[in-house]
């Protein structure tokens, strides 16, 4: 069995909102993710998925608890965490005035990929994601499908062992979404530990090896699909999700 790459223990994140006061976005979340695994965070909008992933990726600081990536703590060693991590989100955009090749080179170099191997790695990514004809074009000139491919390429260009995909298919058409899912599966097969958040049940069902159902900042259940089915006596993930989030049995 692969080693644990991401460990999250008692992770909490509070925000201060001027109108609502203290908001507890994530509360005592625990999970771990291993290599060659897609770990899904399944939850409705505002459930705390993005906050959890942003905290693991060091964009946010936890209020309590710990998160470690390859043993590096997100608070005390954020640079090492980021070096071992690729973060992709539907809301993370690319620099519009750089070309695809320049973007990949920048991310490889700043993320400490060996300088002497950067050029060949960038060309490998260009080849792998079918960017050859557009590698010299500025990002702002690319179609959204091509931008998405460049985004995935820049997420993995420094060959990080851990990847985070935060609702990656939001806003994509069916074909582009399927392309992306295929790419994520390939990355899992390459041995990466993948944290994947979504609110789309079919996507989680198709991709994830294990699923954590998150609601109001808390993880309500965490197991593989078979385990969740067994625990709830429900077959469909949608029903399982409703079971944990509302406490109602939709098949009754």
């Amino acid at each position, binding site marked *: 069995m692969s080693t644990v790459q991401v460990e999250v223990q008692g992770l909490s994140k509070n925000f201060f909102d001027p109108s609502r006061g203290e908001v507890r976005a994530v509360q005592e979340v625990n999970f771990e993710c291993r290599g060659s695994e897609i770990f899904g965070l399944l939850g409705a909008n505002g459930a705390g998925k993005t906050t959890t992933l942003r905290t693991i*990726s060091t964009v946010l600081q936890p209020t309590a608890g710990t998160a470690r990536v390859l043993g590096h703590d997100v608070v005390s060693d954020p640079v090492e965490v980021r070096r071992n991590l690729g973060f992709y989100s539907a809301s993370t*955009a690319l620099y519009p*005035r*750089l070309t695809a090749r320049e973007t990949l080179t920048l*991310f490889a170099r*700043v993320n400490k990929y060996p300088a002497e191997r950067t050029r060949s790695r960038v060309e490998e990514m260009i080849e792998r994601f079918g960017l050859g004809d557009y590698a010299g074009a500025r990002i702002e000139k690319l179609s959204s499908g091509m931008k998405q491919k460049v985004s995935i390429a820049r997420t993995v260009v420094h060959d990080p062992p851990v990847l985070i995909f935060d609702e990656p298919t939001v806003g994509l058409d069916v074909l582009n979404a399927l392309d992306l899912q295929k790419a994520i599966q390939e990355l899992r097969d390459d041995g990466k530990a993948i944290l994947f958040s979504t609110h789309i049940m079919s996507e989680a069902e198709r991709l994830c090896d294990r699923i954590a159902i998150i609601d109001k900042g808390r993880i309500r259940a965490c197991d593989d699909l078979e385990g969740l089915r067994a625990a709830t006596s429900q077959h469909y993930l949608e029903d399982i999700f409703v079971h944990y989030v509302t406490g109602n049995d939709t098949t009754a």
Partner: protein
Amino acid sequence: MDWTAIRLLYLSELRAAMRERAVLINGILIPLLMYPLMMWVMFSGILFVTARFESFASRVEIAGLPAEHRGLLERLEEDEGRIEITEVEAPTTRAATAYREEVENRLLAGELDAALIFETIVDPPGNAEVLLLSNGSSDPSQAARGRLERALSAERSAWLDRIAEQHGLEGAEWQVFEVRSNNLATGRQMGQFVMGMMIPLFFVIMIANGCVYPAIDSTAGERERNTWETTSTLATRRIHIVTAKYLYVATMGLVAGALNAAAMVVSFRSFLGPLLARLGGGDGSAFAFELPLTSLPVLLLTAVLLGALIAAAMMILAAFARTFKEGQSMVTPVILLVIFPVLVLNDPSMEFTPALAGIPVVNVVLLLRQAIAGNVLWLQLGITVLANGAAIAACLWLASRILRVEEIATGSFEGNLFQFLRQHWRPAGGKA
């Protein structure tokens, strides 16, 4: 410090900036082309006015010209430009008022440009009270008035010379004062004086102008484009990302200032010198626009200090903006704040004292003016470097404190610098 990451991010910011039209226009084209364009406009304007002046004839009417002053007509015709003179008899005393009204109406209607009425002939013969009528709101009328005044003045001098001669006096005897003025400043010094008045003013404006777009673009612009989160996941400390951005903004300011100063010197030498010579009718040696060699390091130093200070101030304010528009409104006060002292100081009599050397921006302007005049005041220079260095360090310290606050780094803080200071400032080891 992770200088590799800083260098890579800095170069990528610069590369992206060179592909942005607004940065190229504000940071390079305007500083570079402003003076040639200004000079071209001045040249064209002067040529246009000259050509226009030469193209039309001044229509003047002279009433009651005494026989002793017929030379006035010749003097008018000798003056530059065409002239149409209508000479009329002096109106009788009874008709004088009606004649004057009629002339005034023609002047106001634009049928006549100026009129000279010899109203009363007084003793001794040749002396007269003269009324010069013109329309101050009309260019041709103003030009005609000028010609009449010049001709009258010349005629008066000639008349006085003749009278003096009749009394056996030489010109020098009745002149009392014969003033001969001699400007001891060399053409080079005159040029340096003019440049000393202009370079600091535009230098500061151009550096601020060069910093504005990059400062907003690299902070609020990143948030607006959703690239800030992408940047903040890079494997380097956030302070290194900010350092790279800061160096980029300061560089753009420095480049704008340096290009502007170079363009000014070249434009002044190529256009303004010949232009002033043409206007003054001289040989062009009155103004020599050359910067002393010693001023070049000072110019570079001041560009660095100003660029670094303005960039830091602008980035502090722009850090609170979530959109480009917000950034523009937050950064505008910095521009006004740096331009105001320059406008106030645009008095050549202002002395560069050690006390003034302690005031950022003001000290840089005065140091630059002195350097252009060929003076390097070492004490003031040292104080200037220290004062600006301290101001830059304070700005960067404040910026690092601000960016440590998560709401600001993620763009969820709703407010500006002053609201931030109110909420987070704790003098004795506060929250921030």
